[in-house]
């Protein structure tokens, strides 16, 4: 009976710790976004939909971070890791629209070629995906090592 109570306490403490860690990570990402947004804000008025696009990305990314943290130590963590990496790749490709942005501002047509940036970002996202796959393999192999024969 005492052991069960201790287990519950441990579990509760573990969940609380994970929740705290997830909150802190989420808050940190949001703080970074908030600071970076101050730099982008002057041009956001020129590009319609930029703020919504970035806000959506940050919101989904923070949700992934929180869920990942809450499911750490389980196989679901690996799933969410891979899902996050795939989300970043997918969102980059769809949001960057092939890497070429066209804006019309006061009779001036502006074309910004971000293809090189998109390529670098996609490579980094693929690296993140590879890392997630390795983490899954590592997790499964560790589980197999400790499994009773």
């Amino acid at each position, binding site marked *: 009976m005492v052991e069960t109570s201790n287990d519950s306490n441990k579990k509760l403490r573990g969940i609380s710790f994970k929740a705290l860690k997830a909150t802190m990570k989420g808050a940190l990402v949001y703080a970074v976004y908030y600071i970076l947004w101050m730099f982008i804000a002057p041009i956001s008025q020129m590009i319609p939909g930029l703020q919504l696009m970035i806000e959506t990305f940050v919101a989904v990314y923070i949700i992934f971070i929180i869920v990942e943290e809450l499911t750490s130590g389980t196989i679901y963590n690996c799933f969410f890791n891979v899902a996050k990496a795939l989300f970043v790749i997918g969102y980059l490709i769809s949001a960057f629209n092939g890497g070429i942005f066209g804006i019309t501002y006061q009779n001036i047509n502006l074309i910004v070629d971000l293809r090189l940036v998109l390529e*670098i970002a996609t490579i980094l996202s693929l690296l993140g995906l590879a890392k997630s796959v390795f983490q899954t393999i590592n997790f499964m192999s560790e589980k197999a090592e400790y499994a009773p024969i």
Partner: protein
Amino acid sequence: MRIPIKIMSLATTFFWIFLIAILITAVYSAKDLQFSFGQPQLLTTSDNKLLFSIPITIINKGFYDIDYFNLTTKILDKDGFEITNGSTFIPVIEKDQEVNATNNMTMDINDLLQRNENYLFNDTELGIDEIGSIRIAEIIPVQASTNFSIRWGAPLYNFTLGQYQYTPINFTQASITIPISFDNHASFNLDGSIQIRMYNNTNGLVGGGQTDIEVLQSSHYSECIEFVVQTMRITESGHVEVYFNTSFFDYGPIVIPYG
């Protein structure tokens, strides 16, 4: 396997931060770029072509050098055909540097008249296409383009030959005086000569005269050409041919019937 995963994680994070930092600072640098265009100047080249010169000043107060600055200006006629173009290329504009350049375009009015002689007599609009491109932070090419129109002022606007005056000198010769008037709406001064040849109804040359002109831009010209003709060659009807020889263009004949 944990150590390689940690290293991958660290490397990915580092490169992401690096990439985002470059992107943000590049955007911020673009905000601190200043382009200013001076008053366009109209000059004349040694081979009597019009030279449009637009002074450009670029001040780079951003964090990065600017590469491959290229400005191309195209002048188009009302049908969209290119009349002339000019390009300015600056390989590098270093940070905290101010660069002055000019975008020059030469225009041969004779070429313009071959396309459409109405440019001499009617005011119209010419289209201007401006295309500028730069590369920020060595990874982000940016291109800006715009188009607008400018007024083309005809150098011989409302060109008119008045009613000629016939004054007998003796039994065989007479003096012909023909009034000429036009408005120089062009943005350049017109200097040269006008030559007139008068033909009778059998296309025989009756006589001709020439006068020098010097008409300032945006001013009216009204003078007379006087020449002596053989009385017996004059008929009640015929035609007059007008030729222009100016420093910017040679044009003629304009055939105007009389009688």
